[in-house]
């Protein structure tokens, strides 16, 4: 039986999008969605459509910018790229996320030590 796909926590999609754009440069919506799926080893339960809510939110906050352009295979698409302020935000959020996850890791590890009481 395959492992159940992960539901996204509130706000994590925004962070993933920012990271993807920071790493890959300019991308269109489908590209971003595919990159996230690939990077997570297809472990994320992502309705690709939900990415558009995230994109408009990030854009309205001024963390990414968008422009219509043409893809490699000559298809018109909207390309997103991260802004300077977006990078600052990403650094902040990533640091926070790492602290959170390492803390969670420590807390969950404690469970094993106290198990034989």
């Amino acid at each position, binding site marked *: 039986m395959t492992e159940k796909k992960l539901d996204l926590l509130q706000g994590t999609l925004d962070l993933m999008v920012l990271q993807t754009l920071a790493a890959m440069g300019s991308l269109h*919506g489908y590209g971003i969605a595919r990159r996230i799926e690939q990077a997570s080893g297809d472990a994320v339960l992502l309705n690709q459509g939900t990415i558009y809510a995230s994109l408009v939110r990030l854009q309205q906050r001024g963390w990414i910018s968008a422009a219509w352009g043409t893809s490699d295979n000559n298809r018109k698409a909207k390309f997103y790229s991260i802004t300077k302020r977006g990078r600052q935000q990403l650094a902040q959020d990533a640091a926070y996320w790492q602290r959170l996850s390492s803390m969670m890791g420590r807390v969950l590890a404690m469970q094993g030590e106290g198990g034989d009481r």
Partner: protein
Amino acid sequence: MDSLRQALARLRAFFRKAPLDRDLDAEMASHLAFAIEENLRRGLSPAEASRQALVRFGGVAQAAEQHRETRGLPALDVFLQDLRYTLRTLRRDRGFASVAVLILALGIGVNIAVFSVVNTILLRPLPFRDPQRLVWMASDRGVGGLSAVTYTVDAYEEFQRHNRSFQDVTAYDPYFGDNDYKLTGHGEPQQVAGVAVAGSFFPLLGIQPALGRPFTPEECQKGARPAVLLGHFFWQRQFAADPAIVGKAILLNDRPVTVVGVLPASFDFGSVFAPGLKMDVYVPAIMDKLRNEGNTLALVGRLKPAVTVAQAQAEVDVLMPQIRAAHKDWFDDYATAMTALKDHVSGKLRRSLVVLWCAVGLILLIVCVNLSNLLLARAAARSKEFALRSALGAGRARIVRQLLTESLVLAGAGALLGLGIALGITGYLARQGSIALPLLSTIRVDGAALGWTLIVALGAAILFGLAPSLKVSGGNLQDALKDAGHGMSAGRKHDRLRAMLVVSEVALACVLLVGAGLLLRSFLRVLDVDLGFQPSRAAAIKIDYNDGGKRERRSVVLQEILHRVSAIPGIQSAGVVDMLPLDRNRSWGLQAKGRTYHWDKEVGAAFVYIVTPGYLGSMGMQLREGRDFNWQDTPTSQPVVIVNQAAARYHWPGQDPLGRIALVNGKDTRVIGIISDVRESSVEEGSGLEMYLPATQADPEGAELVVRSQVPPDALASSLLRTLRAYNPEQPAAEFRPIQSLVDHAVSPRRFFVMLVAIFAGLGLLLASLGIYGVISYSVTRQTQEIGIRMALGATTKRVQLGVIARTMRLVLAGVALGAVTSAVAARWIAALLFKTEPTDPAAFACTVLLLSAVALIAGYIPARRASRIDPMIALRAN
């Protein structure tokens, strides 16, 4: 910062829906195209490639919706949607909408109007610079009237010199008639109302003349070139707002006086210091001329920053005895009571205004209850619609929201219309110059009133909208869908809520009516007060004569004037006085000769009136003992005085003062008459100590000719003025005032409040009866079928009618009982506003109960008659 940016972006997006949606559609289409392309490359069939792409995308419509919600302002979208729907349904139901808006407009309108009055008189600061630092100082001597609040020039100057709490102290002469002038050289001679103010008066208040300059210190000195400042309205009326008048001289009392400036339109002396009076011109108070005139100055001080009224009072309590000790010749009962100027101006009105405010609050509550009832009836009729919507997936919150939007729309429309009503009312009030309420002329619907409108409208919308919407949305879906909706007597629970609303409405109206009844009775009692004179068919006009300051000459001149005036057909009697009762007053020293007084608790002063023979009779005053003055009381004969009963009792307790010697300002004077007490300063308060001196033996302050006629005094105005002009061509075109107008002016604040409260009570009664009618009528409609069956089974017309009326009266009696109890509590609270009326006045309560019952009977009878005319055949066939 970023969230602000986001909010702005959302707002922008809200207004650019169409292009953004097109953009999104294109973006999603390209997304799917990319996905299909990749799937094809992986070797899927075209159909499968497209299916897979759509599955991975996860619902195009949902994604677009999610995007839109993130992008724009979904709450506003929903609101606009509700708004459109509401407007559509209200358009369909015009009758309901117009009745609801009209009722709301009345309720909100009177609320804004009364708020504007309260705001103007109580809340808004006085229209001066830093008004919270202005203080009113009353000399607080034992006698009543103006002499009890004023100071001598010496005291004023000592005060200015010694106090440390005030930045400055200024003064004006509150004996307003003293500074009335005759303006000549601009058409007919005109009577001009003036007030003398200290040089520092305008600078201290922070009033800059709109044109020209304030008085210079030189102009306030004796012998200076006379100067005058014009009030704005006088300038507009008399000089057609000609700016060139500044610097020119005008003739006041035949003397050229230079106009040094024009005051701004925002400054209205009367509205603050003399409610109900209009001042035309301002002249400098020449202190050296007033120095020996006794108490002539009313004092206003400006506190230093951070000094409180209480601190200033504490200082003056120490200072005053020291000053008194240093000046043995001063009035030995001088003290000073300080109040913030604002409290002095409007403090006495606080309770009345709060009562007024509460009254309109009650109106608004009644309006809300009425609206709630209307909406409940409407909601019941629409219950199927809501059941259907909820069956289609509308959540409870969504339906409540929809209904609240409806209430908001109604309240908004009502508020707009109400604002119009309020503008009308305030406009009308602002023109009522004769009502002796301070600041009334400055009343307007300002920003604060608009804010209040918003609060009232929102509050009302929630108040009347919440109950019905909760009721509707909380209902059982299945029941609502199954319920045929009419013809059945089911829905008792629904009816109970509506009945409760009617009961509370009646109770509120009852409180209003009892309050209005009590105030009305008080007002009637005030009108019934024995004034000590007969105002009807008596009238007064200010006259001008020249006696050269000599008493002998004055005697001749006044005799001639009175002789000529008495010869006019229709005039019964005539006399001259310097100050009319309820108009102006002053007091002089009065003691019984040979009696020792305890000055710490007794007063040696009385109101003084300088009169000619014939005055007492013309006013309709009652001489109790002794004789009236006659022309044989000459400057050289024995000085004589007439005192009122109060003064007689006070100074000669247990004795008959007739023929005894009184000390009038220290001079031996024989008491020749005793007169009934006259209400000299207020209709509602008792009379003070009064004395009357002949104009041949004492010097009057101005002159009012009082005539008593057989015909209405108005008819005599022109012939009287002709006669006066024939004798003295300079006689100004003064106002011919019926004595009744003095009484009207004195009772005008009470009349104003009673009128408003009575109107509000009437409005409350009307609304309550509408509510009763609505509920009974509605229940009759709902029970048409049931009534039809009962009639088919033999119930008579009378029985059906009685049934409906009994139901009405049950509701009303419950309401009245509740209201009467509440009123009994509320009435005690307004007891201070009542005049010779107990808060438990049985008449007021009985009338209220009768009135409410009668109105309710009518409101219930109309649907009852309709019920009795139901044709059983038709009613039964209807379903």
